[in-house]
């Protein structure tokens, strides 16, 4: 099969790729748009896979970004499931596993990331990872009261799943090799609040615990810990991070640097190829051009849209503040900005029982905020914190600390400087 009118091609039909396709049409691009997805489903939102069901929902349902019909209606060709096996850059064509070859004018790689495997768990039947809707269906079908779930990795995926499972009456153990949960990216103060919440719900969290061996038992897995403790479970979910899907780009000779390396306009080392979302690393102007790779839903959405604009020649630079959230039990956590250059944190306690931490750099600049509170109660302050971060503000510590001072006032006084 040959298709010879080159247009816009997007490899990866997750949040990022789908948003790129929709944006191309919103921008009135009239040429062919082909969206290639690895999964059997139409584009859907991934965050709900590890979160509690919406009230009134009796089971996990696809949260649709765009159905096949709605994509067809706007002239986007969705090929899913389909696998791209090679990019022929000189001819500007991609080759699919079924032998098809498709020409492109501009190509976007939105290939996402894959859960990091735990070598010691290779080949075990009752040990899985969570990334796709089908993964989530498999896991949820096995969560029922009285079952035992072991989660390896005290990161967001693992903890969100622990919260869901414990609500279903599952006996949950979380094994974290670091000294505490959420070591990467969340301050100890906030991690401790979440840890306690989990403990209150009967989740057992074991920190500083390396897995020594895993063996299959009748219908389950026995995990032997380095300190010789034993955790027996019916199902093991491994959540120890993800690695960017760079194989296609690498084989095509594109520059790779902790992900597919792009510039602030999301261009790869080939001017006809862009990359966006979890699979790419990009320079973040707000942090001195530091190269980062983000695995976050909003980044995928924003970069998908931005890549589409730049595929159309708009020449727009990335400028968003990194941001992510997590929901566990009745608590909502948010982190905005990059926390790792923090030298000082200023704490504000909100009227709703939430905690906000403002992260200051050595020069007093607000570089990040992290916080936790009931439901979405910290949302407004977070948006304002994000705007302050984007403006490279240096708010007075007393003002940040006092709940009497509205962040909106700080933002307004900032803009009059």
């Amino acid at each position, binding site marked *: 099969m040959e298709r010879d009118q080159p247009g816009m091609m997007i490899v990866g039909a997750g949040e990022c790729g789908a948003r790129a396709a*929709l944006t191309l049409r919103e921008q009135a691009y009239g040429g062919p748009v082909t969206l290639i997805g690895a999964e059997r489903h139409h584009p859907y939102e991934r965050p709900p896979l590890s979160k509690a069901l*919406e009230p009134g929902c009796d089971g996990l349902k696809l949260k649709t970004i765009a159905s096949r019909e709605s994509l067809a209606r706007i002239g986007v060709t969705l090929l899913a499931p389909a696998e791209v096996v090679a990019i022929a850059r000189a001819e500007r064509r991609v080759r699919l596993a079924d032998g098809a070859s498709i020409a492109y004018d501009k190509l976007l790689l939105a290939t996402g990331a894959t859960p990091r495997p735990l070598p010691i768990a290779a080949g075990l039947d009752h040990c899985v990872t969570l990334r796709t809707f089908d993964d989530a269906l498999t896991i949820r079908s096995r969560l029922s009261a009285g079952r035992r779930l072991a989660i390896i990795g005290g990161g967001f995926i693992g903890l969100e799943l622990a919260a869901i499972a414990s609500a279903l009456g599952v006996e949950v153990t979380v094994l974290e090799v670091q000294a505490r949960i959420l070591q990467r990216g969340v301050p100890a103060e906030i991690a401790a609040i979440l840890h306690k919440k989990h403990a209150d719900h009967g989740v057992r969290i074991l920190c500083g615990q390396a897995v020594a061996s895993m063996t299959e038992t009748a219908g389950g897995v026995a995990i032997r810990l380095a300190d010789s403790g034993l955790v027996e479970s019916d199902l093991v979910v491994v959540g120890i991070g993800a690695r960017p899907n760079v194989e296609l780009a690498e084989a095509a000779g594109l520059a790779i640097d902790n992900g597919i390396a792009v510039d602030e306009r999301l261009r790869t080392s080939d001017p006809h190829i862009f990359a966006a979302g979890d699979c790419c690393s990009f320079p973040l102007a707000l942090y001195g051009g530091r190269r980062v790779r983000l695995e976050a839903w909003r980044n995928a959405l924003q970069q998908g849209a931005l890549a589409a604009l730049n595929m159309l020649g708009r020449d727009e630079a990335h400028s968003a503040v990194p941001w992510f*959230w997590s929901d566990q039990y009745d608590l909502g956590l948010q982190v905005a900005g990059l926390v790792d250059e923090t030298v000082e944190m200023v704490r504000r306690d909100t009227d709703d029982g939430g905690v906000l931490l403002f992260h200051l750099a050595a020069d007093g600049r607000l570089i990040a905020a992290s916080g936790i509170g009931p439901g*979405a109660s910290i*949302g*407004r302050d977070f948006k304002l914190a994000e705007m302050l971060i984007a403006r490279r503000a240096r708010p007075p510590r007393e003002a940040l600390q006092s709940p009497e001072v509205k962040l909106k006032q700080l933002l307004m006084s900032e803009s009059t400087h």
Partner: protein
Amino acid sequence: MAWVEACGIDEIDREDVIRWDHEGRSFALYRSPDDEYFATDGLCTHERVHLANGLVMGDVIECPKHSGRFNYRTGKALAAPVCVNLKTYSTKAQDGKVFVDVG
């Protein structure tokens, strides 16, 4: 028409929003930068999050959870991930109170 007294006119700050629950329904009540009052459904059309925890900027409310945006005067969905418009309700300010036509 079913006008219901919702709150005092000063219970909402200028360019801000509050939550108002009435007979099992949740609304978001807004006061614009020009001291006009508006009302919409209280929950985001994306994932049913209370919009009253969000930030009002000019004519726009941003959802506190996933950053979807609506024009609260018209209910129009402005930015992904929201794509379904927000239902709006008529309001009137009278005798120091805000009234909402809950329909």
